[in-house]
């Protein structure tokens, strides 16, 4: 049978406030275990939480950035369960009155269907505290508890089940991360755990009405450590669930863990998560009304978001929409791009604007991918270097082909492109006489091709140009080479 996947994603975002959500402890990542704790986040007897105002303001910022409505009254709830990394025996979270509701994200089309935007509705955005971390020592027979992370502020961003494929899920996450980076409220670093994602997936019959509530059995996938893992695990689940349904099996509503090495999900023992969280309003925090002026103020302070910026790039830099969207999906790339534009010589930006974009989306993107660096800053190739590279080509000092070599070398050595060109003697040969000398040699060596040209086979010229480029090891200016060759052939 044909199925339509129904996918929703839950993203946990660590907010980069200086201090924790309910106490003054530092939120710095990587400190020695239990060095960033106090009676409050240790859950000692008698302590009380006090809400960090910045967490609330960041929360409003994100909720507004995701087009949510803000809850008029802020209420926290206790989510009760026992676990050694949860010092109080409950997590302070939000329950039936989340900070933001009813938002959406517009995701630019996937690679499979470029240019077709789709909308993912945001069900809710809420504030909560993070738990600590367990370090298991199976050989020694014990586990250690590190509570540095306990009380670090989190936003939970829950999408509606609007996604229909692993690719859409991946693009949604990319878009969401882009927006969150623009909002400057989090490092959005999946490796450090400042951005985490759980997925929910069920299958509906392909013929089922999209507007009706989904009927499939929902499976939650945890332990997803990258966007790629999210997509892979969803693809795996679609297959697994599809096969099971085809075989007439009944699926279990359960939580499954993704194993990235084996490339499969595995069911958790259901006992471990069969919780009744016994939510009730947190009596230690007084509900408070959110003044609408406060929301307005945060709203006015929102930065230009990716979609708006992409539109501006189209208008201002005359870029194709696809380029503009690609450049602006990551804030650091877009900032880099605009830093380059500012460095371009005044009055002649038009063509370099496109050239800079091409380099960023082409070679530099590939380099980032190959070197596995996160963000353009990781390449150690400042905007000035890219502008220099583009200028070297533009002024004919090097060819496009040589430029790729120069780039590789510059990235390796950290030298500027101009310095690389100088050091390697890579400058393009634009001297007509030396090209003419080389061209004569080529014509001597390839009499047949020269004769063919004479007899009207125009394509022989390109062959000869290629030979000339080979002889000069690519240093000859290709345009000039062609011109000189034609001249020699015609004057024979």
């Amino acid at each position, binding site marked *: 049978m044909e199925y339509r996947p129904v996918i929703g994603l839950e993203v946990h975002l660590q907010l980069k406030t200086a201090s924790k959500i309910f106490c003054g402890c530092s939120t710095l990542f990587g400190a020695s275990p239990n060095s960033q704790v106090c009676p409050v986040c240790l859950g000692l007897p008698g302590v*009380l939480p006090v809400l960090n105002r910045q967490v609330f303001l960041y929360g409003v910022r994100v909720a507004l950035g995701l087009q949510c409505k803000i809850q008029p009254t802020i209420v926290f709830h206790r989510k009760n369960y026992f676990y*050694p990394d949860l010092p109080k025996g409950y997590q302070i979270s939000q329950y039936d009155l989340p900070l933001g509701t009813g938002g959406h994200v517009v995701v630019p089309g996937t690679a499979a269907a470029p240019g077709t935007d789709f909308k993912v509705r945001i069900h809710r955005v809420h504030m909560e505290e993070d738990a600590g971390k367990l370090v298991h020592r199976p050989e020694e027979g014990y586990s250690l508890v590190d509570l540095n992370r306990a009380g670090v502020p989190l936003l939970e961003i829950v999408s509606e089940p609007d996604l229909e494929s692993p690719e859409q899920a991946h693009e949604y996450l990319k878009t969401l991360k882009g927006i969150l980076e623009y909002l400057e409220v989090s490092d959005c670093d999946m490796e450090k755990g400042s951005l985490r994602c759980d997925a929910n997936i069920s299958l509906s019959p392909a013929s089922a009405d999209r507007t009706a509530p989904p009927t499939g059995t929902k499976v939650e996938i945890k332990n997803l450590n990258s966007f790629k893992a999210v997509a892979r695990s969803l693809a795996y689940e679609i297959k697994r669930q599809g096969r099971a349904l085809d075989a007439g099996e009944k699926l279990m509503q359960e939580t499954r863990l993704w194993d990235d090495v084996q490339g499969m999900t595995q069911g958790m023992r259901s006992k471990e998560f069969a919780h009744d969280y016994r939510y009730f309003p947190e009596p*230690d925090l*007084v509900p408070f009304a959110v003044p609408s002026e406060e929301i307005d103020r945060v709203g006015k302070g929102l930065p230009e978001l990716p979609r708006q910026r992409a539109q501006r790039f189209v208008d201002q830099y005359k870029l194709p929409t696809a380029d503009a969207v690609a450049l602006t999906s990551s804030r650091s790339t877009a900032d880099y791009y605009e830093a380059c534009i500012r460095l371009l010589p005044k009055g002649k930006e038009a063509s370099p604007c496109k050239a800079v974009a091409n380099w960023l989306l082409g070679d530099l993107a590939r380099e980032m991918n190959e070197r596995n660096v996160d963000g353009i800053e990781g390449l150690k190739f400042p905007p000035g270097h890219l502008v220099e590279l583009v200028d070297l080509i533009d002024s004919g000092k090097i060819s496009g082909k040589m430029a790729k070599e120069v780039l590789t070398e510059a990235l390796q050595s950290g030298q500027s492109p101009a310095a690389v060109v100088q050091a390697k003697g890579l400058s393009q040969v634009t001297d007509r006489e030396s090209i003419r000398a080389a061209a004569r040699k080529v014509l001597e060596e390839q009499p047949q091709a020269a004769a063919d040209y004479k007899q009207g086979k125009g394509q022989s010229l390109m062959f000869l140009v290629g030979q000339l480029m080979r002889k000069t090891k690519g240093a000859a200016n290709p345009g000039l080479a062609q011109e000189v060759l034609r001249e020699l052939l015609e004057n024979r």
Partner: protein
Amino acid sequence: MTVRDIQILYEQKEASPSDVVKTFLDPIEEREPKVHAFAWFDADRLRDQAKMLERMSNAERGPLWGIPVLIKDNICVEGVPTTCSSKILAGFRPPYSATVVERLKRAGVLLLGMANMDEFAFGSSCEHSCYGPTRNPWDLTRVPGGSSGGSAAAVAARMAPLALGSDTGGSIRQPASFCGVVGLKPTYGRVSRYGLIAFASSLDQIGPITRTVEENALLLQVIAGFDPRDSTSADLPVPDYARSIREGVKGLRLGVAKEYLGEGVVPEVRQAVEAALDQFRRLGAVIQEISMPHTEYAIPTYYIVATAEASSNLARFEGVRYGHRAKPGRDGQTMLQMFTQSREEGFGPEAKRRIILGTFVLSSGYYEAYYGHALKVRTLIKRDFDRAFERVDCLVTPTAPTPAFRLGEKLEDPLTMYLSDILTISVNLAGVPALALPCGFTKSGLPMGMQLIAKPFAEETLFRVGHAYEQATDWIHREPML
């Protein structure tokens, strides 16, 4: 010795804090074995504190300089065992002090020790303590009330001039009544709860237990006020209680609610309160009858709200970070076993009963029927008080329906025990302040108490009314024979 007596000695340089410590060590040594009011006491540490105080310059000396204060065993004192009189917190010494303790230290007090209590403040008799029961100084076969039984008994037995208790459903007022002393449950938010080991967060308040109303005001003055560490504390100025305390009751409207004098209130107690009303009339107050129609729902409402919050508040005691941890068996111990065995061994029967009750009322499928409903009734009870205070300045009720009962009398019957708080718990549900003070003695010589209730943040009214009554009567001059 009263607080004033001690202060006069200091002012006239006739005694030092070390001398005062000595004068309290004797009665403590003599009476404590009989009364058993302390959960922790360290004479050497007390002497050291006195010496430290003596080194202070006059400018550094706070308003309660050199006055001994006993702290209930659920209020954290840095470095001092603070255990809620529970095995599960055996040996726990907090690395920080409660805000009230910080304020007391700044005021210059001598921290006398920790007072025995019902485990986690669950109880009305001070029998549910891992240290054994406290006894009533007026009759050692009787309970001192609870849960702040140790605090009230120590003040009554003259082992401490001042004490702190905590009150969630009557835990300051009922023992004050049983022991013939003065106890205040301040308005919710008047005193910081930071460092008070929570029983029911929306009901708990720390308050003073003293011999006189004036001393009570003095102690509240020091501990009251906004605390940025407690989001539920009120950001309101604290009035100077001493200034208005002598203004008398002439012209004040005092309300009497029939719901508080119904069946269950024994005749002697009712007569004592009626006599007190006559006294108020003679002092020029106007007595009005009013109605508090939702009083009968207070007990079920309270036992849902309080146990629900308690079940969550007590979840942190699982042996991972502090307190009692069960030893692994021969086959080792799983995480779940560590949790359940530690709690099984560490909590007493009443604590377990309340945790189970609270867990049940919050369970999915039951939440609306119990907790959700209780919150609505709580609003109605609060409204009763709002309406009453449109007509009167202060309500007068008995504090407890009976005088102190015998040890063991209600231990096997939790429901009867719960009913001994019937007159005090509405006050916590409504968040209003209430003062309990002695209003007579039974024929057999047991103290009886009267409760004054005012609108939120009107502790001034309570002190004023209480002080006027105290001045017109001589109950506070009686002492238990020990």
